[in-house]
């Protein structure tokens, strides 16, 4: 499927020049001093450098990130501090500040991802193998939480479709189910039955294969911080944030529609699809507008979070009022 760029945004308008220059400056500085940066610069891909490259402003720099995605959002990016201090990640607690506090020592190395269900390539993969051969690219997406706030986030990742194809799903694989790590020792939030653990999310196969669906490993050119779902999470920009499952340890191909955690918790409030839709309110609050973090006046929420040209065709004939 082709991604049609929205006609009103020119790609030249998109990259924030200041950031871009900072990035260059940073690269110059590190390459002069650190041998690790040289490794990064010579183009060792993904996993290896993911472990080696150090010295980014907050964590570790990711190497060779492809820039200039055609659908990058032109709005001002939210700051690193916003994106890493205001999180919904109930495994680490239900307050927005809990993940940043309690995910500090979260262990993401080594990390294994189990692939099972209706596919040819079942097994347990190292994170390095998940990333191997993939070109990481930056994608500036709108991120809309079901709680009616939003951010603009420069994710770094690669299309989930690439990974799925490598798993060789069979014709019986109609849906993909994802599981977050469940480790009460490291994740204090899971000691409380606020949701049913482990956290489960799911996508219809065509949604999972959609070129906008991103398997995320980084943020702002750096390795993804733990409070944002390290080492591997999804970004599905036309869906509410709770669909963007974090710290993925299992991918399962299934025939039946998965029961995702929030739907299981409150089926009248959270559905399977969770497409951003200003016309369908949450039973308790309005979805017609949203607070962009950092702004005072609220913005109108866009249908499919502004990605309608790309994804609306996935839902032709589906009653979005019933399939919220």
């Amino acid at each position, binding site marked *: 499927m082709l991604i049609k760029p929205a006609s009103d945004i020119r790609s030249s308008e998109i990259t924030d020049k200041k950031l871009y220059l900072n990035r260059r400056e940073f690269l110059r500085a590190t390459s002069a001093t650190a041998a690790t940066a040289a490794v990064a610069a010579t183009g060792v891909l993904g996993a290896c450098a993911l472990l080696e490259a150090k010295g980014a402003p907050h964590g570790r720099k990711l190497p060779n990130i492809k820039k200039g995605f055609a659908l990058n959002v032109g709005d001002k990016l*939210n700051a690193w*501090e*916003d994106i890493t*201090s*205001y999180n919904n990640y*109930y495994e680490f607690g*239900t307050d*927005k*500040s809990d993940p940043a506090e309690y995910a500090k020592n979260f262990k993401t190395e080594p990390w294994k991802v189990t692939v099972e269900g209706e596919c040819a390539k079942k097994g347990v993969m190292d994170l390095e193998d998940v990333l191997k051969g993939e070109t990481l690219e930056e994608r500036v997406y709108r991120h809309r939480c079901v*709680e009616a*706030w939003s951010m603009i986030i420069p994710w770094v990742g690669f299309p989930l479709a690439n990974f799925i194809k490598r798993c060789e799903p069979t014709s019986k694989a109609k849906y993909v189910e994802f599981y977050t790590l469940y480790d009460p020792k490291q994740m204090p939030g899971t000691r*409380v039955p*606020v*949701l049913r653990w482990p956290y489960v999310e799911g996508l219809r196969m065509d949604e999972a294969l959609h070129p906008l669906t991103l398997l995320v490993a980084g943020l702002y050119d750096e390795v993804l911080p733990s409070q944002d779902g390290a080492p591997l999470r999804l970004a599905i920009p036309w869906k509410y944030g709770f669909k963007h499952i974090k710290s993925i340890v299992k991918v399962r191909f299934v025939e039946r529609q998965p029961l995702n955690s929030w739907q299981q*918790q*409150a089926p009248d409030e959270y559905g399977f699809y969770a497409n951003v839709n200003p016309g369908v309110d949450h039973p*308790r*609050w*309005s979805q017609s*507008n949203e*607070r962009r*973090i*950092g702004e*005072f*006046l*609220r913005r*109108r929420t866009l249908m499919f979070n502004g990605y309608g040209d790309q994804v609306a065709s996935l839902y032709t004939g589906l009653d979005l009022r019933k399939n919220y």
Partner: protein
Amino acid sequence: MSDRTVRWVLKPLVFLAALVPLAWLVWAALTNNLSANPLEDITHETGIWALRFLCATLAMTPLRRLTGWNAIIRFRRMSGLFAFFYGVLHFLIYVIADRFAGLDFPGGDVTWSTVVTWQTLRKLMHAIGDDIYKRPYITVGFTALMLMVPLALTSTAGMIRRLGGKRWNQLHRLVYVSATLGVVHYWWLVKADVRRPLAYAIVVGALLLFRIWWFRMHAPVTWKKSPDPVRPSV
């Protein structure tokens, strides 16, 4: 404790202490010590403090009964008024940050001359009314606050005198409804983790149950009919 100590030392101290949450919020907002969504923090915090002061107000009578420390009753009015004060702040911040900020300004043109108009006020009133009508947790929260208005208005010594102790007492039992609705409002707005609203429900529930229990223990037994009623001679 002497009357003068309560009046000139303790009361001013408690008054200042009750303003600390507000002072902290203002300080935190000005020094960037709130979260990335400061308007939400301020909305939540003022609401929580309204609920806390309601609990404190409801705790005065049980405390006096259990400890015999009668002077504590002299803080009940202040505590109740602070509950109302934080409740009003909570409502005003909701009006500004949620309702006003969510209005549509034609063409996104936001200047003094386009915003400060009668039309904006009309739209704002409509947006507030609409929300109160449509969203049960807003309906309940707004009701809780509105029920506190007559209590705040009749909190002066003059009003107590004018109403008479008995009627004043009856009227001020509305605070039981207000506190209960406040807890329901909180409960209905959390997404999944109800532990905190549950804690307030337990506190308010216990304070109300105490009253029932106390009444049963101490009220004159009037419901038993004596077999041979004695008619008072006129």
